[in-house]
């Protein structure tokens, strides 16, 4: 209890920004909880963290989290985060995106940041639909499932986010669900500790739109479905393709080493003789405390 209230006190803008806008039962809250607990476990000072988002239900997260937060335009979280990371390579940079925000309108930024292997963590909340604008089909809406712009079923096919991330060049990928909240927390810890572009895909429930349109029931029912249909990647190798049909694989799926962008950049500067000696070091921007005064 004591730990939970410390996290709430330390990491949330409890007094100013609550109640939040999410529907009761929405998995984004569980995701945010797991993320904040991961930060607390790692004892990362919140003043060392930049949290960036675009627009959408998931995009609201930085409103509530007491990090340095940047709430930007739709789809651009990762691009803005790239700028923040390059300017302040010592900061822990995370981008939180939904599936529409991160993979449709922002898909280009996603793959290029992965290719660069820039050190940041992307928390990609996948609820298979555009929630905030009313349930249009997204790049992760499964084929034939309903959306408000696909009243008789989606003709398109969804991304496999793992394959996409891996193919684009990221060094860490894990998938969790909002049912497996403790696993999610440990996956996030791992991702946050990884030097390089790391992605945690969170299978979440949008019962308000996706669930209602596709008759998947209440938040509880949708989360129960995750409990029953998620298969840990470690157990998956012992199962037949038939047994895995329609299941969601969870766990750590990619963890490799590749040179990280900011480090490579610094190395190139060193190789070329370092930064100009005669110029003074770029002035440090004032610490947040100083701004307050």
């Amino acid at each position, binding site marked *: 209890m004591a730990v939970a209230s410390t996290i709430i006190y330390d990491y949330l803008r409890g007094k100013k920004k609550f109640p939040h806008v999410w529907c009761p039962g929405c998995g984004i809250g569980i995701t945010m909880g797991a993320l904040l607990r991961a930060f607390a476990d790692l004892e990362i000072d919140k003043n060392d963290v930049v949290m960036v988002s675009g*627009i959408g239900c998931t995009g609201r997260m930085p409103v509530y989290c007491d990090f340095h937060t940047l709430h930007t335009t*739709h789809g651009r979280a990762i691009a803005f985060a790239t700028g923040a990371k390059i300017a302040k390579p010592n900061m822990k940079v995370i981008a939180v995106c939904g599936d529409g925000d991160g993979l449709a*309108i922002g898909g280009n930024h996603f793959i290029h940041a992965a290719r660069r292997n820039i050190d940041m963590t992307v928390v990609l909340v996948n609820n298979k639909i555009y929630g905030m*604008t*009313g349930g249009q089909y997204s790049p992760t809406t499964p084929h034939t499932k309903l959306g*408000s*712009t*696909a*009243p008789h079923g989606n003709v398109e096919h969804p991304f496999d986010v793992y394959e996409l991330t891996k193919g684009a060049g990221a060094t860490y990928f894990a998938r969790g669900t909002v049912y497996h909240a403790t696993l999610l927390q440990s996956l996030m810890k791992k991702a946050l500790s990884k030097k390089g572009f790391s992605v945690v895909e969170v299978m979440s429930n949008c019962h308000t739109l996706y669930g209602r349109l596709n008759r998947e029931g209440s938040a509880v029912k949708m989360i129960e479905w995750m409990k029953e249909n998620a298969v840990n990647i470690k157990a998956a190798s012992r199962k037949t393709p038939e047994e895995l049909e329609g299941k969601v694989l969870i766990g750590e799926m990619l963890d490799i080493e590749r040179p990280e962008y900011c480090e490579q950049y610094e190395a190139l500067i060193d190789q070329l003789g370092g930064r100009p000696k005669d110029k003074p070091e770029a002035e440090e921007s004032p610490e947040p405390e100083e701004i307050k005064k």
Partner: protein
Amino acid sequence: MKEFIEGSMAVARGVAVCRPHVVSAYPITPQTHIVEHLSEMVADGDLDSQFINVESEFGAASVVLGAAAAGGRSYSATTSQGLLLMGEVLFNIAGLRLPISITVANRAVSAPINIWNDHSDAMVFRDAGWIMLFAEDNQEVHDMQIQAYKIGENPEIMLPVLVNMDGFILTHAYETVETISQKEADDFLPPFKPEYYLDVNKPITMGVLGDPNYYLETRYSLQEAIDESRDVVKQVAREFKEKFGRWYGDLIDTYRTEDADTVFVAMGSLVGTIKDTVDELRDKGEKVGLLKIRCYRPWPGEEVVESLKNIDNVIVLEKAVSLGASGMMADEIKASLFDTPHRPKISNFFIGLGGRDIPKESLIKVYNQVKEKPQYNQFVDLKPELLEYPS
């Protein structure tokens, strides 16, 4: 048929009877309902169009560009950030002379994030080569869809049209709308038959490099075409009246200006509020009227001058600011009047930005201020307490 429908549905119905070949869009508030309604019509087999929900507004604008280049009538709808994201493609659409129609559910632009109505989004594109129409109510925006294609597809014009309607105020409001039937629409709007389009049997190249020897002339002919579209906008409004009996003005409209000494000038749904305010002030003996700008691009300079020839005081109300300059419309009105013998006093105000409510009382307050002395670049209903830094 008279129907009690949402503004977005009024648009969707108006678009559907134009038989667009391709509809492409990306979800964004407060536009989304428009394309949702269209996607339903397509999915239910009521509308024979290709509907594609793409990955961004940049994609949507590009899809409709491609569709129009291939000879299809095409449609999209967006707002605010979405319109800004379309920006690069919008200039290309005009440059390629593709008569696409896009409905803008006008909304403020970021930062800060704001989903409510003003005109900051559309006004960015006043120099893009698009015809820009602003609707006053849901009947007008329903009727404007078919007019837009008829204007843009005129072989002498071949220009795209932005149909503007106020986000939420119109898009989400239910009103009784007399909807156009398919038969009526087919009688009014002929099938789209462009002279040039991508055709394997008659290959052409579109979007080529226009080097310094050619580029200038493309701008010249764009300017010429949009200038000439003034007459087409007027002609289409007249034809529409003949066929459907409904009239909203052509480039402009006036309300109770005959003996007026003062007029308000505005665009969009604010026009309705002003009409009520004018009635109220008239009841008190004030000689006040309204000039509605219905077509902002091409700019109706001559018509504006003509309608202001007996006016002493002009009150321009704008839902957008040209930051670092002034009111865009106020400046254009002044420019139009510069070479004329009669120059009324032009007061200008910024109003309703980011969805700030515009009650009649605010308009009356503005009117009384102007009666005392002309006002320039005033923000109506500013809250001074919000301008102070929190201690």
